[in-house]
């Protein structure tokens, strides 16, 4: 029998960016918050031995132990789903801070177009532009309404950046100056400008200079050590929950974090949650934590799983297109990347930081005319200077064998002489891309795993083909001696790392029939459950999602306070 614990105001299932933001905002208003975190406690001192590519990158030190819980994957409904046995295409973080510890720190705002994508697409191109199997939806909130929340996140994290010069993109003033520009980024800037594009230095959560945020938290500048994404920051220069919002919450005395605690279910009766059922994996004991408000604040995929296993909300049915939990799962694409080889140049590519990049949005969102194109949306185009570590970076020109003498000598020669211009391709929702419960495979407690049914559709493949030509053109203009591209986007490869920008599954919107959450991230079907995170995105844009996730978390925090004061559905 699970042991019942005294009721609290708010319980969090997961203590990463969204849980941390909500904890900071609500504890400072005097509410009691209990955070349940499946992983361990984290602090900056943990990263004393962090410059270890094998441990952190190859062996996924900071990621979820998949022996206890994973998901299953397949390309379409006719196939048997197989377990995602090893980390590959994406990385599910765990531990206090969650993915906010091992992220790169690229912090964008989704475009005004994104939040009203259905309306704006129909306005400009007509209804026929949207394929029948693409459940494209507005988000139930506009960019203008979200601006104050974006500002909150950027000010808290101290985002370093310059204004995006593209005329279609709203101007943003960042609290700290942009990161340093490397010679290769300058080449990218010049070449892109020559081609008529609008390059700029990407907005970064890896601080360009010392910064004290409105909570009084000071952090030092990034040292460009070259170990950032998949790693924790030993300087605290990269904004993470552990060095920003969590200390604020703890300082109030109203916040308690329980680590090594896995939430199995949200408990609910008559359309209202009573609390959560969780297991302390150190003692093996089960507990019920009752609360006035339950916030499901784990990683996207775990949020979907908790709701499905709790039988909360209506599961999505791909046959009929009805139901909402598991609907509009989306991802991103990276196959538009081109690599240029420069035989007479040598760059300091071992240096860098996770958010150091030159970027442009000329082929992103609806910033270009899609009238004669066979897709909607697009992707950003960037030259990153993230730090090239030697195990995982072995670029060789096309035609080079994959091993042996030639591979060795070529991979060493080009190690500091090759540059990639990549793109984060947006992925639109498709009726057949969704999440449900797997009928066969179980986790450590015997609960069903989730099953991901996903593949790239025509819209996405056409988009990457188009953008690949641009990335190649930029490298030509930069003076590359040779250029290689990965070729057309094939079926989704679950083994090769692409991006940890999984989105959707518990989406927000204006209509309870077609969305799970209202624009406060409050469940339509259960008013004291909030589900902040990228799970709320009805589609995925062509840029990193964390800036938008952070803004939505501040929005949810405001909603939770309103709910605790007045009750009821907020919309």
């Amino acid at each position: 029998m699970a042991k019942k614990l005294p009721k609290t105001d708010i319980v969090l299932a997961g203590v990463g960016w969204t849980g941390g933001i909500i904890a900071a905002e609500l504890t400072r208003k005097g509410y009691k918050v209990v955070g349940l975190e499946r992983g361990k406690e984290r602090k900056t001192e943990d990263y004393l031995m962090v410059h270890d590519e094998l441990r952190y990158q190859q062996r996924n030190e900071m990621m979820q132990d998949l022996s206890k819980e994973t998901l299953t994957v397949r390309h379409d409904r006719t196939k048997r789903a197989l377990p995602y046995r090893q980390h590959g295409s994406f990385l599910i973080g765990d531990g206090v801070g969650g993915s906010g510890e091992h992220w790169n720190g690229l912090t964008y705002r989704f475009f005004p177009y994104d939040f009203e994508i259905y309306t704006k697409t129909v306005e400009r191109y007509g209804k026929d532009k949207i394929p029948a199997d693409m459940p494209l939806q507005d988000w139930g909130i506009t960019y203008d309404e979200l601006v104050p929340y974006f500002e909150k996140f950027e000010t808290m994290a101290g985002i370093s950046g310059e204004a995006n010069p593209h005329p279609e993109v709203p101007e943003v003033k960042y609290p700290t100056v942009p990161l340093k520009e490397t010679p290769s980024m300058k080449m990218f800037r010049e070449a892109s400008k020559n081609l008529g594009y609008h390059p700029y230095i990407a907005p970064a959560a890896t601080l360009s200079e010392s910064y004290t945020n409105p909570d009084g938290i000071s952090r030092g500048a990034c040292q460009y050590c070259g170990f950032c994404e998949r790693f924790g920051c030993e300087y605290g220069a990269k904004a993470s929950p552990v060095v920003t919002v969590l200390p604020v919450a703890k300082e109030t005395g109203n916040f308690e974090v329980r680590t090594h605690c896995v939430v199995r279910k949200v408990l609910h009766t008559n359309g209202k949650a009573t609390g959560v059922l969780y297991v302390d994996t150190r003692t093996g004991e089960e507990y019920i934590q009752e609360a006035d408000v339950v916030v499901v604040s784990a990683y996207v995929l775990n949020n979907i799983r908790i709701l499905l296993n709790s039988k909360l909300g209506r599961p999505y049915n791909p046959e009929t297109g009805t139901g909402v939990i598991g609907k509009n799962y989306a991802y991103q694409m990276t196959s538009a990347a081109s690599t240029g080889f420069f035989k007479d140049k040598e760059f300091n590519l071992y240096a860098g930081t996770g958010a150091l990049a030159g970027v442009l949005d000329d082929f992103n969102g609806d910033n270009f005319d899609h009238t004669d194109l066979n897709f909607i949306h697009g992707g950003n185009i960037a030259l990153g200077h993230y730090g090239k570590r030697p195990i995982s970076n072995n670029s060789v020109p096309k035609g080079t064998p994959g091993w042996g003498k030639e591979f060795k000598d070529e991979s060493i020669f080009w190690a500091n002489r090759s540059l990639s211009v990549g793109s984060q391709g947006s992925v639109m929702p498709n009726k057949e891309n969704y999440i449900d419960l797997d009928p066969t495979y179980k986790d450590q407690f015997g609960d069903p795993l989730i099953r991901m049914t996903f593949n790239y559709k025509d819209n996405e493949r056409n988009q990457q083909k188009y953008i690949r030509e641009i990335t190649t053109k930029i490298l030509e203009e930069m003076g590359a001696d040779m250029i290689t591209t990965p070729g057309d986007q094939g079926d989704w490869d679950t083994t090769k790392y692409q991006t940890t920008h999984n989105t959707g599954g518990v989406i927000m919107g204006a209509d309870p029939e077609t969305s799970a959450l209202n624009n406060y991230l409050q469940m339509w079907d259960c008013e004291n459950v909030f589900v902040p995170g990228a799970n709320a995105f009805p589609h995925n844009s062509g840029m990193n999602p964390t800036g938008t996730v952070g803004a939505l978390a501040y929005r949810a925090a405001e909603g939770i306070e309103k709910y605790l004061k007045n009750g009821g559905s907020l919309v």
Partner: protein
Amino acid sequence: MSEQDKKTPILDKRSSRRTFIKNSGLTVGGVVLGGALGSLLGKDSTKTKTIESHVHSEATAVNFNQALMYFDKTQFDTIEAAAEQIFPKTDVGPGAKELLVAYFIDHQLASNWGLNAKEYMTGPFFPTEATALFGHQTHLNRQQIFNLGIEALNAEAQKNYDNNFAALNEDDQIAILTAFEADEVTLNGAVTSGFFFRLLKSATIEGVYADPLYGGNKNMEGWKMKNFPGHQMSYANIIEKDEFVKMDPMSLNSQHNH
């Protein structure tokens, strides 16, 4: 930040600062190198020299790490020879053998990696149904896959050249590995020769370039070839430079126990 927040700061800035220094080691008040490494880093520059000389004296001493945790002698010889073909000695620098990659692989197989301890290894398994896009779908762990792969490398060598793999000449070894890569050899278990080959190849590259603490990348020679500086505190003064900056690499050992 909203007007309301400005009026009601919950945290007193001065007291919270002190707490942060004490409890979390965060950088405060514009100190740049205040993080976990900063406390060690900031001491003085003579540290670097001490470390250098330490590394050099170790290099000439006995390497107690050169012993086997998992392989038997035949298995070790087979993997040492195969890894050398994947990453051979050339004019550019040493190959897998000199870099002690086979010891790295041996030690990794003895660790939780060899047992797939942090991976989902619950059945049912459908190895023949899975395309390469779905990765590891066999019930076998990496120790078992290496056992089968090594057995098959030697069986192929015996069948075609009447000798063990390690005793063959370069061309014959390459021919066998090429057949493995192309899935042309049948392993006596639920795994393909191509899967084993890819595992061996990635482990070889890891052994060349992982921090020497894991037993390969001898004396950081792998890093030196590639001009990778390893564990360095800061590139803030290098990041904008036009010219390529070469530096002596440092390993994590330089961070620890000095």
